[in-house]
């Protein structure tokens, strides 16, 4: 039981996808200018990433591994993810205009979020079983959302700061991300009990 907890907490904090595993940076940088959008992106990514880890586990274990077709992983995973994203997008657009308003513009961006493909691949590298994979996926997604939202909070504040002119915008955001990663290094070693 505690083993599962470690996987979950580890994925959120110790091995945070963005700050430690360095995945999903483009949306992290791109959609963090405002808290509001960060919430939306976080929610959308959490949904898709969790779905993607589940789906790719099933594909890997029912279609690929039994036939020794591991080399098709990337291909089949990413196509599945793209389809999930597009389906979600269409369903949301039709069924919930409010959800569409908040999540609509982020969904298409998720296809090109490295984390969404990276986490399923890491799952396989780590040899996780289905539950572990889901937990790792959800944890990573939550970790992504968490740092995205915190980052957006800081960026909204630094927006008003008297940052040296050439550093305004993305450059200072990078520095902020660096200092965040530095802070997250404090969690290092917490997973040694895993």
């Amino acid at each position, binding site marked *: 039981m505690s083993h599962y907890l470690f996987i979950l907490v580890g994925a959120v904090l110790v091995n945070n996808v963005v700050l430690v595993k360095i995945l999903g940076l483009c949306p992290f940088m791109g959609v963090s200018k405002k808290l509001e959008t960060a919430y939306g992106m976080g929610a959308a990514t959490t949904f898709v990433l969790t779905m993607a880890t589940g789906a790719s586990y099933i594909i890997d274990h029912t279609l690929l591994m039994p036939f020794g077709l591991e080399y098709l992983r990337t291909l089949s995973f990413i196509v599945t993810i793209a389809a999930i994203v597009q389906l979600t997008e269409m369903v949301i657009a039709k069924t919930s205009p409010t959800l569409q308003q908040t999540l609509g513009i982020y969904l298409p961006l998720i296809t090109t979020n490295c984390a969404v493909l990276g986490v399923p691949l890491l799952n396989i590298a780590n040899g996780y079983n289905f539950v572990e994979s889901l937990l790792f996926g959800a944890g990573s997604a939550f970790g992504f959302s968490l740092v995205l939202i915190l980052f957006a909070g800081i960026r909204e504040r630094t927006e008003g700061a008297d940052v040296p002119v050439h550093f305004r*915008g993305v450059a200072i955001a990078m520095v902020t991300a660096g200092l965040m990663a530095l802070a997250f290094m404090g969690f290092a070693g917490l997973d040694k009990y895993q």
Partner: protein
Amino acid sequence: MDILLAIAIMALGAVVLGALLGFASVKFKVEGDPLIEKIEAILPQTQCGQCGYPGCKPYAEAIANGDEINKCPPGGVEGVQRLADLLGREVKPLDAEEKPKQIAIIDENTCIGCTLCIQACPVDAIVGAAKQMHTIVAQQCTGCELCLPPCPVECIRMEVIDENIDNWKWKYPVVEIKAAALQKAA
């Protein structure tokens, strides 16, 4: 053999996903785009066409389809900023110089009442009838200057709206204070 198996499995997936997607794309089709409305809400509704589109709405549509956000002079740098915020794009300098807010004034003695300017005004801010003197309702004039060219006797001019006690704004404090600080430090 392996190849055939691989292809078969992938093809199976392709057919399933393709069918799902195709089905959904028809079943869940939606019209309209809330983004355009949001963009339009930011544009100043001057309807002047300086952006190269016939009015603000067409420009909003164009922006939604990827046009630059810096083409609306009446919106000013600030409008660009707000569009950039909305769309997550980078702020760009305005594609023209920013003008102070103006309104049109008709020289009542020269006006011959040709009604050409009435037709040009996109917001019906000009009142008057054929062969009679025209006047511009100041509150309604957006300062778009569209009435200037059609006037045959050039009796319309633009005037900058003066600052008065009612529309006066407190100024941004930093400027002088920074200057003072610098002076002091120097």
